């Protein structure tokens, strides 16, 4: 029993570590690809590891007060917590112990910590940046929550692990609810704060917004946070709509299945990330109220269409996955 727990904990730690590495690597790949789109060579893909190392090895660090420390602490701790609750490559981690709604609310922990820290810097740019980030959150959550609702209604579960199970046995979410998947992907762009929705950190207006006063190890840990967030957000989409990348049933194939599923999952989150990056490279940014209007208009309509589909299928047609 205790050994089981220890093995489980060790595996979770391994997965979390890998997730961080993947996040940093993805950031590097994104930089490289953006550079290629811009006719440049771009940095090596391991550049972000160097950046992170440099930031952590800075000789001096400043803070404004003790609340400032909330940002790196909650940012990193929170993002790891979210990752622990997200199934990665079919390995359900802790997600058997907490469902999607818990996950939705844990998502707020690192963001809130970050917002507290940047608010404590006393810089107006940070205040405006957080205001924009929160408004953006209100914007994209509208379609995203409706999408999650349609999934939960259709699959009749709020638990991610059960959702994966049902997707494996029945159909991937993207096949069953393609309209919702579309809305979710649009919402994902806002969730990742990539263009056209990167107004919270717009450097030309508010000098990188909430990040304005962070430097050294603070910035380093926040970089880890954003690396983790990339995995969280892409993986969330993959878990919700692409079956978490499960192609082999673990109960049948055992360890091999975990290995293969992990690779498939990795490929899928890479694809999701790439879509975001390509869109990011060729769009200017919306103003915040335009982003708000945009999200509460078309993606919401699409999401509601998806909800109607899920509702009709599950209530009137009696489809039970």
């Amino acid at each position, binding site marked *: 029993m205790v050994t089981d727990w220890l093995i489980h904990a060790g595996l979770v730690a391994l997965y979390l570590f890998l997730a961080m590495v993947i996040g940093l690597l993805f950031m590097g790949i994104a930089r490289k690809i953006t550079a290629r789109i811009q006719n440049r060579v771009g940095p090596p893909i391991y550049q972000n590891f160097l950046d992170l190392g440099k930031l952590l090895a800075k000789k001096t660090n*400043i803070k*404004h007060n003790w609340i400032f420390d909330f940002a790196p*602490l909650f940012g990193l701790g929170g993002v790891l917590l979210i990752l622990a609750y997200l199934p990665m490559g079919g390995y359900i981690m802790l997600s058997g112990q907490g469902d999607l709604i818990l996950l939705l609310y844990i998502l707020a922990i690192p963001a809130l910590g970050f917002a507290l820290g940047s608010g404590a810097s006393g*810089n107006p740019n940070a205040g405006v940046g957080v205001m924009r980030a929160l408004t953006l959150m209100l914007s994209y959550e509208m379609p995203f929550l409706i999408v999650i609702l349609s999934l939960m209604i259709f699959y009749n579960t709020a638990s991610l692990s059960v959702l994966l199970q049902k997707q494996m046995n029945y159909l991937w979410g993207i096949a069953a609810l393609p309209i919702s998947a579309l809305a979710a992907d649009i919402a994902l762009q806002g969730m990742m704060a990539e263009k056209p929705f990167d107004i919270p950190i717009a450097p030309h207006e508010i000098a990188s917004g909430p990040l304005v006063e962070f430097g050294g190890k603070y910035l380093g840990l926040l970089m880890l946070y954003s690396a983790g967030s990339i995995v969280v957000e892409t993986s969330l989409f993959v878990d919700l709509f692409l079956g978490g990348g499960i192609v082999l049933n673990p109960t049948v194939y055992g360890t091999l299945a975990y290995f293969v599923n992990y690779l498939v999952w990795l490929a899928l989150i890479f694809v999701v990330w790439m879509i975001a990056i390509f869109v990011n490279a060729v769009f200017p940014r919306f103003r915040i109220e335009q982003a708000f209007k945009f999200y509460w208009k078309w993606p919401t309509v699409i999401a509601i269409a998806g909800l109607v589909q899920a509702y009709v299928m599950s209530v009137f047609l009696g489809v039970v996955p």
Partner: protein
Amino acid sequence: MDALTLFGIFVLLPLVGALVSYFGKKYAPIIAVIFTGISGIFLYLWYGNFGSYTIDIGVKLNLTFDITTWFFMLMMNTVIFSSLLFSVSSKLKRAGGFATLMLLGFAGANGVLLARDFLSLYLFWELMSWSIYLLVLRTSGEYARRYLLFGVLSAYLLIMGIGIIYYYTGSFLYADALSGAIPHAIWPWILTFLILGFGIKMAIVPFHVWAPYAYSSEQPFVAFLSGGLSKLGAFGIFMSMYSIAGISLLQSFGTFRGVSLMGYPFALLGAATAFIGTILAIFQDDIRKLLAYSSIGQLGYVMIGLGLGTPLAIGGAMFHAFNHAFFKSLLFLGAGAVIYRTGKYKISEMGGLGYRMPFTFMFVLFAIFALAGIPLTSGFISKWMLYEAAISRKFVIVAPLMLIASVGAYLYSYRILYGVFLGQLKDEDKNVKEAPGPMLAAMFILMVPLVIFSIVPGWILGWINKILVENGIGKLNYTTFSYSSAIGGANMAVFWIAFILLLIFAMLMFMAKKARVVDQYDNYLAGEAPPSVALHAAHNYYKPLRDTWAPLLKHSIDRAYEKFSKFFAGGFYEIKRIYTGNPQDYAAYLGIAFLAFLLVGWWLLW
């Protein structure tokens, strides 16, 4: 224990306390704290010592001390205890009167909770209502009038409901209502009157207009009003729907996916309240008004749970009412502490106080965690229960509104945090001190349960489960650390262990090196450093959002009422001339409302 002891401890004792503390002068709050403490001790001792006592004094009256009463009394007692403790050091004017009125309200509230017959219910309800009125009156006559308008409306509605029941049954006892004397077709009217009557106390849309004004009075009182007394509305609705009418009667009006058609409209009303309250709260700059609208929104959640009526939903509503009692009074007390130290009400005029008042900040932060539903506090679990209740029954209107309203809660919570506690510390606030000890103690008392019940939700879910079982509603699925519904569940022990381990890990990464603390003006100003600079971006904080909502916000219900009353004030100009008195515009409105309700009642009964 008999009826008299029960009545004595929970109603007479506060009344005596009210009398004593009136002469206590500046020690009045301390005396009041002692009296509430005594009844609190009895409350603690008498857990499990439940009983129901019917007294016949010409009419049959009933006092019952059961788990439902106990549960609500627990909130009421803790909240008033800490509110009064807070007021010990807040140097109120005419503290004697304040303590007296608070205790009167407390006695009334306890009476309402104990009463199981309509006559005493109504008497205690009025006692409570009028002490609120007088307490609001301490701050502003205008606010009090607005409260009175709705307080009286609420009383009318209750009278209507009670009157109809009494007309048919001839008894005031709750238990007699279901005897079959009342025709089936009349029940919806009774329930509507009672629910709306109680709902006004909960500030349900569209009857929320009084709340932002009444909640702008003295903070210790508002903490009790919002945290404690507004729960009487929830209690009343719970009693009328699930105790007086009962679940089988509700179900007999037809069901919509297992939810009574009698309850579902109220759930929708609750969802609308949650949404509207949240959206309005986002745009407030006055911290009291912001908390008031937030209160409206949060009580909308309770209404949703009560309307849906599944065990999970009602459990969620009870739990949320409990959480709301604690975090909202904590927020009002935190705001009170800040206002006490700075004398400012506007969020945009404060700023940076978290650096000067770290404990207040920490307490408020926990309250905000609970408000926003962050799983670090029990605020999450109640929201979780409500969501799962709605989603598992596939309610596609209620659920999204609830979910998006809770995202909106992040927005206004951050407005409080940033505007008051973070950002630039103003020069005039440089010397602000931490709040005095009693205030901190009061806030601490309120914070503890929020954290405890997040780690061990089983304890409180046990009480709630008992309430549900006792009223024949159903039961909850829970263990000491975890809880589950038909579609999901969560284990808080796992969550807390994971959270603490990962936080320690982050701390290890973080603590490797010390950071230098710099002045707040050593800041990124694009290379500039003017002698004085305003850095606090809190005024009009959500302006882009406000601009997008502007066309809708124009049609505020508040203004609709005002127009309505102005219209009548104009119409009744003649009366003004005839009578020597000076009837206010609200009076005209009251008269019309009374007439209307009389007519409706008359039409119903005959």
